């Protein structure tokens, strides 16, 4: 135990003496959290719509006014569809609405009119939403002319099944509350894992590790001495991130903080253990950085941070069984946002514990004092 204390003392001295790294370790994640949580949103507003009105009647203007009144759309009138296409090309418009020349006449004479939407569908998801919004506005216009022209009382659609819905846990569908725990997980892991991994390889490159290898320090003492400081830093940042979430983003913390930190601790054992393992099998900092970068990027994207895990193909879900991020991403959000308890996250906790054993076991096993 005393030996570990001496190693810890040394590690903390080195960490806090490095004046270039300190702000990177502590300020960078905070700034990113505050700025980027708001960036992660699929919410759509300010859709630029270019409207071509070849009809130019009170009816067509009535339709346009519906778009004007909508908070989603910024209307710009263009003289022709070709102009609209140019606007689409240079990204000044997202969608073109063309009202044909005989729109009003056909409506009155044939009881049927038609308008055309050209949607920039490069972002398929946004295009789908734009389509939904636009068609609901046209429907509103439709309803209005029906009641206006035919004197039919407006009312419910009269469909035989009435469906209502309730959104639990996040009734206003605020996306930042969902993203914050996810982004926090990324930040904390990136910091913890890189720092731990680089640390050992750095001692290798500097040659100081040899000096330690000729001493009677035990393998587990050395690994523990390298693990603990970065665990403390990562947990501290996790706590700090939660505080920021609470203060600036109204992040609900419904579940038990003890449970949350227990899960975070076990997860970090896995993450830092992996970092240690990769560092003992690497000989240069460059190597270890690229290796970690590769796995991190893959694991994070597959963890369900942006897209739900269940929607992934089966083989990806199979890979995800060994992806520690999946468990923490899920448990973290559940505990924070839904107040899930110990039994709810037991499976995730158990899986993480197993991986913690494996990762640390491998790190201790592969760390050779003799080469």
């Amino acid at each position, binding site marked *: 135990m005393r030996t570990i204390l001496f190693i810890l003392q040394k590690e903390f001295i080195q960490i806090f003496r490095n004046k270039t790294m300190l702000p990177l370790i502590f300020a960078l994640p905070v700034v990113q959290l505050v700025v980027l949580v708001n960036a992660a949103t699929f919410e759509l507003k300010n859709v630029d719509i270019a409207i071509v009105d070849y009809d130019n009647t009170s009816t067509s203007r009535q339709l346009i006014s519906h778009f004007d009144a909508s908070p989603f759309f910024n209307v710009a009138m263009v003289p022709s569809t070709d102009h609209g296409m140019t606007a689409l090309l240079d990204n000044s418009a997202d969608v073109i609405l063309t009202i044909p020349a005989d729109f009003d006449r056909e409506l009155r004479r044939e009881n049927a009119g038609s308008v055309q939407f050209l949607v920039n569908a490069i972002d*398929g998801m946004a295009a789908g939403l734009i389509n939904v919004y636009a*068609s609901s506005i046209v429907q509103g216009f439709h309803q209005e002319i029906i009641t206006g022209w035919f004197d039919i009382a407006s009312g419910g659609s009269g469909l035989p099944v009435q469906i209502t819905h309730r959104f*639990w846990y996040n009734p206003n*569908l605020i996306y930042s509350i969902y993203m914050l725990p996810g982004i926090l997980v990324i930040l904390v892991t990136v910091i913890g894992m890189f720092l731990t991994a680089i640390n050992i390889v750095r001692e290798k490159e500097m040659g100081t590790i040899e000096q330690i290898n000729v001493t009677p320090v035990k393998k587990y003492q050395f690994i523990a001495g390298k693990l603990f400081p970065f665990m403390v830093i990562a947990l501290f940042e996790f706590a700090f991130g939660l505080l920021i979430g609470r203060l600036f983003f109204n992040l609900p913390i419904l579940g038990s903080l003890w449970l949350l930190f227990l899960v975070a601790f076990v997860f970090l054992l896995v993450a830092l253990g992996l970092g240690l393992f990769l560092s003992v099998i690497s000989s240069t900092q460059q190597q270890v950085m*690229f290796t970690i*970068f590769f796995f991190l990027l893959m694991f994070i994207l597959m963890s369900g941070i942006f897209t739900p895990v269940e929607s*992934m193909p089966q083989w990806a879900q199979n890979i995800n069984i060994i992806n520690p991020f999946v468990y923490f991403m899920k448990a973290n959000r559940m505990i924070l946002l839904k107040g899930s308890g110990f039994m709810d996250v037991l499976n995730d906790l158990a899986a993480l514990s197993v991986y913690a054993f494996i990762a640390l076991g491998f790190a201790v096993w592969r760390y050779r004092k003799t080469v």
Partner: protein
Amino acid sequence: MNRFTGFVKKEFLHIIRDKRTMLILFGIPIVQILLFGYVLTNEIKDANIAILDHSKDETTARITNKLLSSGYFRLQSTIESEQEIEDLLRSGKARLVIIFESNFKKSMIRDGTARMQIIADASDPNTANMLVSYANAIVADFSRGLMVGQALPIKVDQQVRMLYNEELKGVFMFVPGTMALILMLLSAMMTSISIAREKEQGTMEILLVSPLRPVQIVLGKVTPYIGMAFINALVIIALGVLVFGMPVRGSLILLMAESFLFICMALSLGIFISTMANSQQVAMFISVFALLLPTMLLSGFIFPVENMHWILQGISHIIPAKYYIIIVKNIMIKGAGFLFVWKETLVLVGMMALLLLASVKKFKTRLE
């Protein structure tokens, strides 16, 4: 010049000797593209739902059937009481609970309407919203099928054309995004780390006293990486086109040239970072940590920039990946020519010039 090529050759050998790093450098873009292509779709399918059917009649069975055969939902469990809802949602076993009121079919016949309710776990608001709208649409469709023959007096038809991407495929978003992300990060990371490495190990001073000029040293370190990043760009484009059917409607040569420009810009950023960093650790932290999330989130790669707060939109103007993504999309998907991308090109050239200028200045003052 001879000396210089010798130096480049040495750097190149140095890089390709580390087999694992090489494997990773070329593996990253392939894995990323496959991930985005096959794994990270925004389409939702097989979401777990639970059904609480107080009525258990023929109509509720038909609605349930319709919901489950849509492919969006998978039945996790049928439950018997309201008490179970909370547990199902909190434990994450189900994303939606669908409740049919008792006497569902009877009320429909007697009153003309029957009621059902969806309770969604909105801790993931985006998915919850989508699932609820799918369920709504399926039920509304079913409803409409029940009331045939009641036509509206007037019709407004909407013809919608999804331009550039009729099937609303995700590939048009992720290929340009991945190109930007990978080229940016790898280039900045590789250069900044390899220069910082020389500094850390004290070999930079040896190089500086050698007859090579500082510019040649930096160029020599960077040249091999230009080649590698360019190969990566080609691999991503090839995968996008061959595997995911991404079109190249505009000029391929223009696309290559713009990619080359972007790579050079990213390498300049790497050089600039290395002038600030005196250890590999610092270089890595700045080039990965400070670039990864902003490049992913503020470039329009995953989340559309137009919808963000004006402050974030302001910040997005200094994210180089944003301009490159616009350029790539315009050329590949819209088939636009140089006339439609010259502004973005100019911005990238400007950024590159600025970074190089700042690096040279920093480098000089350090030497004096």
